[in-house]
């Protein structure tokens, strides 16, 4: 049992802090979910990447710093404490990159990862379909064999940032006759600007085009963009560095920073008694999440697999995030109704937490069945 960090880890933290202090833009960038904001965030990724801060846990060969999980956590704490911008390449860095590390070829890593690190290529995740949400395995979009590759047809939806992104990764049915819905799927990468792709931005609650629908009509994908073996898509997608993803989907640093911001807002509003408990709970929740993550990281470094624990994690942070932002808007009163503030944008974003990355109902099923051992049954 130890919560202190080694001098080398603390030195890493100090280096990150100093760099961020010198580089974080003094004013917040425009919203990531607008064309202008997207471009500004891309430029910020390039600035991070220039000093190898955009994917610190990657090997140096691809632009990272070989940082351990603990160092990644420390970096994230510093990152959010410094008020640095949201990450436009989140999908790529936290979902596609781990998949490529586990299942990709050396050629794919060398080709895909460096431009991901610089923000030159921003990735979207194309998993969901209109008829395949929680029941993802029922997806229908197809990939058909063609000379030297595959032809994609079908429709994907809710693809975050696809309105402005460059490429996407997703699951496609390559064997429609496979006996089970999880079989006969293939995981591949494609170009959002390829012939046959139509991207229709979808406005989220606040009107910003935070996600998009993709219509695919015989879109050609070369063989080199298939990840792993054809037909193995489900297994690959689900294992997406299964363990680490649970830890890395949302860093504790982000919630520590949010709770600190909320606390300062509360103080600035005269520390009203009526919201005292909720503000205290936000501070406590951020600490709980940080320590939970430290414990999970320790187990992970011991070689244990974490599996369904990431479901516990996911339900916690998504509900925590909403409670925190609801408290902020309540504190702001009438001002809280204004849509063009950072609090409002963060609030709107927080509302989607229990829906994406597997809804919280699905996560609770996983906790009940796989952690508590309750019988499968009526849904």
């Amino acid at each position, binding site marked *: 049992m130890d919560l202190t960090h080694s001098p080398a*880890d603390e030195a890493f933290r100090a280096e990150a802090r100093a760099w961020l202090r010198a580089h974080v833009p003094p004013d917040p960038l425009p919203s990531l979910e607008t064309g202008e904001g997207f471009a500004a965030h891309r430029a910020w990724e390039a600035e991070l990447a220039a000093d190898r801060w955009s994917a610190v846990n990657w090997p140096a060969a691809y632009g990272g710093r070989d940082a351990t999980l603990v160092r990644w956590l420390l970096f994230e704490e510093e990152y959010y404490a410094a008020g640095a911008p949201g990450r436009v390449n989140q999908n790529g860095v936290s979902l596609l990159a781990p998949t490529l590390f586990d299942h990709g070829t050396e050629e794919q890593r060398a080709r895909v990862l460096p431009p991901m690190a610089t923000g030159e290529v921003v990735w979207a995740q194309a998993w969901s379909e209109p008829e395949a949400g929680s029941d993802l395995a029922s997806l229908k979009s197809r990939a058909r064999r063609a000379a030297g590759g595959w032809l994609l047809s079908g429709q994907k939806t809710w693809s975050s940032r696809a309105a402005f992104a460059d490429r996407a990764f997703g699951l496609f049915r390559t064997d429609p006759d496979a006996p089970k819905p999880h079989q006969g799927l293939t995981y591949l990468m494609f170009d959002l600007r390829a012939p046959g792709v139509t991207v229709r931005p979808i406005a989220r609650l606040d009107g910003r085009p935070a996600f998009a629908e993709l219509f695919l009509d015989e879109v050609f994908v070369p063989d080199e963009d298939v990840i792993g073996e054809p037909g193995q898509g489900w297994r690959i997608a689900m294992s997406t560095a299964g363990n680490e993803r649970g830890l890395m989907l949302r860093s504790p640093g982000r919630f520590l920073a949010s709770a600190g911001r909320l*606390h300062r807002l509360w103080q600035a509003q005269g520390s009203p008694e009526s919201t005292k408990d909720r503000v205290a709970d936000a501070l406590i929740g951020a600490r709980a999440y940080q*320590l939970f993550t430290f414990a999970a990281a320790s187990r992970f470094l011991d070689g244990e697999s974490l599996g369904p624990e990431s479901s516990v994690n996911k339900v916690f942070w998504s509900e925590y995030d909403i409670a925190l932002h609801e408290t902020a808007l309540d504190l702001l009163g009438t001002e809280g109704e204004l849509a063009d503030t950072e609090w409002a944008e963060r609030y709107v974003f927080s509302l989607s937490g229990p829906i994406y990355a597997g809804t919280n109902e699905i996560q609770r099923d996983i906790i009940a069945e796989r952690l508590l051992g309750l019988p499968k049954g009526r849904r």
Partner: protein
Amino acid sequence: MRFLLDPEQRAFGDSLNAMLAAADTPSVVRDWSRGEHARGRALWSRIAEAGVFALAVAEAYEGLGPRPVELAVAFVELGRHAVPGPLVETVAAAILLADLADPGPAERLLPALASGEAVATLAWKGPYALDGDVATTRLALTRPGLLLSPGHGPVRPSLDPARRLTPLEPGGELLGRDPATARALAYARLATAAQALGVGQALLDRTVAHVGRRTQFGVPIGSFQAVKHRLADARIGLEFARPLLFGAALTMAPADIAAAKVTACEAAYAAARTALQLHGAIGYTAEYDLSLWLTKARALRTAWGEPDVCRAEVLRAHALSGDRRW
């Protein structure tokens, strides 16, 4: 940074768990609730032999401590088995006595607490002390200072029948003027948080077992999603209280301990509500053993710092530190 119990700490918890499981604690609790303390005292001795109370006592007074992480490990197990008696109070008394300016009372009283020969209780800024009728060292924190009370008044029933509240007789030997109380409070809160976590864990485990066995509509009720989701929430609550508990044991900072206390007690209380609901009417009876944990979860929620008090402590610390304290 390796925020995990080490193998010895885990083995210590496991061995306590095994010992308490073999001791038929529920029937010990029922005796205790009726004022029959013989089996409870025997169990107390075994807990002391395992070293639990010694963990709160410095080596100078024949203890092994203080060792907050190990204490937390032990109190989770004591809570899991609903062990009755002034367990937290004995720990708090040990710290309070050790912190007196005059080492005399500590030299005289602490070795017996560490060995389990003596049982302490403590009236902390209020009239009641837990189990004053069984305690041999009754302490009262009063205006002039810390008093060794000569006796106790009538037993008042608690919502948790195993927690027997007794006023202490006024007067007695003055052990120290203006005693330092902060550290004793910290240990008491930490131990209470750990105990609550164990109580919550037991409630969850017993309820998971129950919903797997009980059938309605031809299937186990545990296969219904409404049932599953309540239990998943109980698990999530407890799962996030645990790191706060051990984090607090490492730093022993009052705000960390307060955060652990409120979170563990709220999680245990929520688990109790879920446990009661999912057991149906059987859960609402005193004869079914679940009640031993249900009522304790309620009592621990206010013992040694109500939720409100703990949250205020967290806010105070953050206001002082300017938000980089966590």
